[in-house]
């Protein structure tokens, strides 16, 4: 049962839930379950090709992973997945 930690700005799409516990066994599967349970999160999380948006980072523990390359990575009950928005801006 991996845990996905949802960042503050996306909690409006998860009924203010901070995390999702998932029985999925891959990173890809865990993210797919998040989108299935909370469809409104999709447009802020995934691009038009169904890939994680470029300004959203995904961490497993303290390590950043690229879900486009590492989608098949195994997750288990000890895995903590964090969704982290990259913050930027300016003129």
């Amino acid at each position, binding site marked *: 049962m991996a845990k996905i*930690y949802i*960042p*503050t*700005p*996306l*909690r*409006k799409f998860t009924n203010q839930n901070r995390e999702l516990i998932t029985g999925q066994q891959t990173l890809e599967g865990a993210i797919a379950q998040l989108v299935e349970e909370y469809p409104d999160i999709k447009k*802020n999380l995934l691009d038009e090709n169904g890939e994680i948006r470029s*300004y959203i*980072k995904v*961490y497993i523990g303290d390590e*950043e992973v690229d879900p486009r390359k590492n989608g098949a990575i195994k997750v288990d009950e000890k895995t903590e997945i*964090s969704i*982290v*928005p*990259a*913050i*930027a*801006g*300016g*003129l």
Partner: protein
Amino acid sequence: MMKIKLAKQALDEIRSHAEEDYPNECCGFFFGSEKNFRKMTHIKRVKNIQSENRKRRFRIDPDEYRRAERFADQHELDFLGIYHSHPEHPAIPSEHDRSVALPFFSYIIVSVTGGKSVRVRSWRLNESQQFDEEELEELPEIEKVS
């Protein structure tokens, strides 16, 4: 119009940060509470890690973002938003700001002219992905900021 109240000490700290980092853009996070309105009580300065053109752009290390989420959890605060400065430009979000903005967060922008903070405004994305301005109120009382 949505409302955000800002503790004087926290707001002064944002203004100071904007002046210290002038002519570059400064950035940081802010926290507080949200019931009928937002109330900012705490700020956290963050390094602008943009490697080039820091006069016109800012970028925050994702690890800093993760620390900010933990800080909010540990102190039972709401993570309310992000502040940054616009050196020699108005406190109005740019198209670039809008294109990378997140829902829910308030975006406080400080306009800095000649090294002095001259205007502070706050903005929030609406359902159409456009920014609406928030009514900003400075709280006179001093609140503890850590």
